[in-house]
């Protein structure tokens, strides 16, 4: 049975925890709004880009002259998994879910006898995967100093990946991130970026129109495919940013509520103990008086 003083200390401590989680929730809410705005601002570019690329890929894709980024290297023995997570924790299952998906994929590929390499973006994913896949790490991108994700960040990551691809380090690249649906739902997603695949947008808004290409279809494709990788990574980073804040917001909301419940429970316990002490003292006094 904890003493009254212990209980009091405990209540104070939970109260300050609640203050902190409450503050974190509000900060996450504010950041979420910003992250969502930039995710939405980035969407038109990605959509149009993919629509044009899909059209181009469909017309050039079959031929042998298609660039390697579209056609692939001809084999799929070496896979690069680009795992994008947050730099900070305390955001519920956000990092763990992405890491879990990546780990499952890595196991599956290794089961098939493929070679797996892992590039991590964000500290938390690195920490989560270090134990199981640590020996497969080929690199790490640190974004902890980046206040606001910009396109240049995505370009740097894409450049890194592309130079590895040109160097023949891998055949297939897949990025892992969490797609933002709403504050309580973020879906961990795997998306193949090399060789590029365009599915949904294939129809596009330009159906029927026959385009002139300048310089040529192949040249445009060769120019745009590397940009496509950067674009895919950029939208993944933006989605991830919004997802992280959303996950943190709901995690902190839960934590605040749990702290509140705990305070209520402890307060009841505290009051009961205090009453018990008073009753005890009374009994002692009364029985003392009676004994006289």
């Amino acid at each position, binding site marked *: 049975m904890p003493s009254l003083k212990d209980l009091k200390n405990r209540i104070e401590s939970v109260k300050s925890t609640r203050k902190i989680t409450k503050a974190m929730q509000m900060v996450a809410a504010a950041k979420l709004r910003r992250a969502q705005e*930039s995710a939405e*601002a*980035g969407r*038109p*570019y*990605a959509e*149009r*880009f993919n629509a*044009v690329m899909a059209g*181009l890929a469909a017309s050039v894709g079959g031929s042998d002259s298609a660039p390697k980024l579209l056609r692939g290297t001809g084999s799929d023995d070496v896979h690069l998994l680009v795992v994008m997570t947050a730099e900070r924790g305390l955001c519920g299952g956000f990092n763990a879910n992405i890491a879990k998906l990546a780990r499952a994929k890595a196991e599956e590929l290794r089961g098939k006898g493929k070679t797996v390499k892992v590039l991590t973006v964000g500290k938390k994913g690195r920490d989560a995967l270090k134990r199981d896949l640590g020996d497969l790490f080929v690199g790490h991108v640190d974004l902890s100093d980046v206040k606001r994700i*910009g*396109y240049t960040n*995505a*370009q740097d990551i894409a450049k890194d990946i592309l130079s590895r691809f040109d160097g023949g380090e891998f055949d297939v690249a897949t990025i892992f991130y969490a797609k933002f649906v709403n504050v309580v739902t973020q879906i961990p997603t795997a998306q193949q970026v090399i060789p590029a695949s365009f599915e949904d947008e294939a129809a596009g808004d*330009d159906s029927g*129109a*026959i*385009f*002139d*290409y*300048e*310089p040529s279809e192949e*040249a*445009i494709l060769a*120019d*745009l495919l590397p*940009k496509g990788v*950067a*674009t895919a990574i*950029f939208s993944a980073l933006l989605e991830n940013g919004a997802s992280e804040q959303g996950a943190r917001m709901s995690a902190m909301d839960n934590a605040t509520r749990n702290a509140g419940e705990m305070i209520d429970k402890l307060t009841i316990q505290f009051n009961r103990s205090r009453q018990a002490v008073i009753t005890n003292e009374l009994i002692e006094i009364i029985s003392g008086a009676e004994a006289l």
Partner: protein
Amino acid sequence: MANTMQFDLVSPERSLASLAVTAVQIPGADGDMTAMPDHAPTITTLRPGLLKVEAPEGSSEYLVTGGFAQINGDSLSVLAEKAIPVTEVTRSHLDELITEARASHDAAKGGDDQTVVDEAAKLLADMEALGTHMSL
């Protein structure tokens, strides 16, 4: 109005412009071209340069690098990796471009392909001329 078309300029980070225009001069990879309403559908990649927009309300200019333009007859979308309104361009933006152009020029000089060297040299000259044009 029949003699305008919808023009969209988007960069990965935001959408910069969306308005009805009469003509747009695009710095295409093979040379500048001007798109007007009912232009044949064309897709062209961009080289770094100035995008000049003529709208009934007035004209504006943007510095664009990388990306492509999709001309659709009644609409025109320009997707640029970087797009900055000329009024906001600073010397440092330009310096960045010039450094980039110089780097690719130097890289090209190491190779044997003369056309690549010429192209890189032209890009470098273009970028420097751009600075003079904008009086920076």
